């Protein structure tokens, strides 16, 4: 009721809570990173690799909890190693999808085993799988911010060769672009973005922030630079929109973000069809 009649007052009330301010900041940081990185993931046709990385992160996080370490550290460490390994597999490996799929199920299985040993982990597991943005504290927020800044800087450094290699690998190779290095470096960046997203929407729903906005942006725009900006903007809007809706409806944030991401993506398909 209050939402429709007095939006400013309602919004003020939402930002009165410390945990909401932190959640907005954390999801904003993760969304901008995910939208930007995700654009190139979709451009390269590597969305499955991103999906798999998040599951590997689940193993890392549960393993870290089991051994009394920080789940975020385990998540980042595992996705990073797996991302670089996937990148080094090479561009042209025909069985790449099978190899990634096997890695994915192996990782989830191991994660399950770790959970089995760590008996009181039910809530922790749910948070990992479906996200718990309202549980992010200030030190975690700072970590997210630093990781996002480093990832975006690294992405800016490799972005030209990355686009070239994504669109025309053979020509890029002939012009001296080190394809394997670019591929491994990019998947390392994807790993960080995945780990950040997992903090917000959970490992099972990373797709919703990494791929949904990026795929929609590529349907909306035919220009590269505009597409990247649009992808980051959509991810941000979906994350913040989801948080806001969750605050007033008391339904889970992750649900609202997936719903918005899905609506935007399917709308982009409709727009593309109509424009064609």
């Amino acid at each position, binding site marked *: 009721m209050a939402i429709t009649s007095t939006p400013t007052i309602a919004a003020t009330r939402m930002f009165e809570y410390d945990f909401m301010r932190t959640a907005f900041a954390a999801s904003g940081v993760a969304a901008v990173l995910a939208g930007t990185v995700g654009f190139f993931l979709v451009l390269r046709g590597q969305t499955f690799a991103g999906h798999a990385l998040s599951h590997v992160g689940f193993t890392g996080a549960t393993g870290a909890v089991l051994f009394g370490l920080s789940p975020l550290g385990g998540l980042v460490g595992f996705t990073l190693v797996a991302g670089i390994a996937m990148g080094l597999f090479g561009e042209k490996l025909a069985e790449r999808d099978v190899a990634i799929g096997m890695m994915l199920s192996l990782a989830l299985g191991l994660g399950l085993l770790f959970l089995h040993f760590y008996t009181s982990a039910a809530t922790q597991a749910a948070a990992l799988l479906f996200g718990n943005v309202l549980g992010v504290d200030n030190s975690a927020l700072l970590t997210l911010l630093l990781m996002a800044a480093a990832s975006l800087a690294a992405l800016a450094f490799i972005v030209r*060769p990355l686009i070239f290699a994504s669109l*025309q690998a053979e020509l890029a190779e002939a012009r001296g672009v080190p394809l394997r290095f670019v591929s491994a470096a990019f998947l390392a960046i994807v790993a960080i973005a995945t780990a950040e997203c997992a903090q917000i929407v959970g490992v099972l729903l990373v797709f919703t922030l990494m791929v949904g906005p990026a795929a929609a942006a590529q349907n909306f725009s035919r220009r590269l630079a505009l597409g990247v900006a649009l992808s980051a903007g959509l991810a941000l809007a979906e994350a913040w929109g989801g948080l806001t809706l969750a605050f007033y409806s008391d339904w889970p944030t992750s649900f609202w973000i997936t719903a918005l991401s899905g609506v935007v993506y399917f709308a982009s398909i409709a727009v593309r069809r109509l424009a064609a």
Partner: protein
Amino acid sequence: MSALRFDDVTIRLGGRDILSAASFVVEDREFIGMLGANGAGKTTLMRAALGLTPVASGTISVLDQPVTRGHSSIGYMPQNRGLALGLRLTGYDVVASAAIGARFGFARLDKATRREIDWALDHVDARELARRSLGELSGGERQRLLLSQALLGRPRLLLLDEPLISLDPAHQNGVVDIARRLRDELKVAIVFSAHELNPLVNAIDRVLYLGAGAAVIGPVEEVVTGPVLSRLYGAEIEVVRIKDRFFVMAGDVDVEHDAHRHEHGDHVHAHDRGDAHV
């Protein structure tokens, strides 16, 4: 100065000699048509000249210098296999990504680079095409646009891998005309690989024919003959010439034409209609 020189070059891939002790020279400003059966090593030869495929023995030199990877004097157009991922993007963005794609560190698309891109697009009449997305272009238009990328950096040698593939005859002629014009205007040497000689025969200076590990270069009349091609194909070959058109026949099968059919998965009628082109 020679544009491209192979001295006793042997290239071995997967235990098979693609080239064995092959020698030939492409002179400066020469337009060479490169022919040969599927798997004869046309793409491999280009990749070796680009420093991407190692040679087992012998030396390759480009403009009298040894081969290096990313040689700026070579313009390369790889065989177009799909390019499915960027079809939504405008042609300009694709060409621009090639123009600054070899540079790390967030290279800006500055004025000089934009001028260079426009210059390359103008040389293949693709400035207007570049506004559209790749998916909207016809096969011939797309080839022109991709060809412009080979001109970036103002190379002295162009290696064009099957630019005519899957084009209809009118578009084939258009692409060959552009290549000939580039040779004259930019004073570059061109190695242009193709399945069929006929679209090229009036444009090229000499032909480079690959087969059975050997490479034979020379005027069309001297190379495209029964005895030479029989050796290269390892089968009895007869060359039938009707005015300016050449038909390379094994028995009564047109070898070049059917090789082209195979590439497009058109397997059904490639074998049993050998007399169709006579």
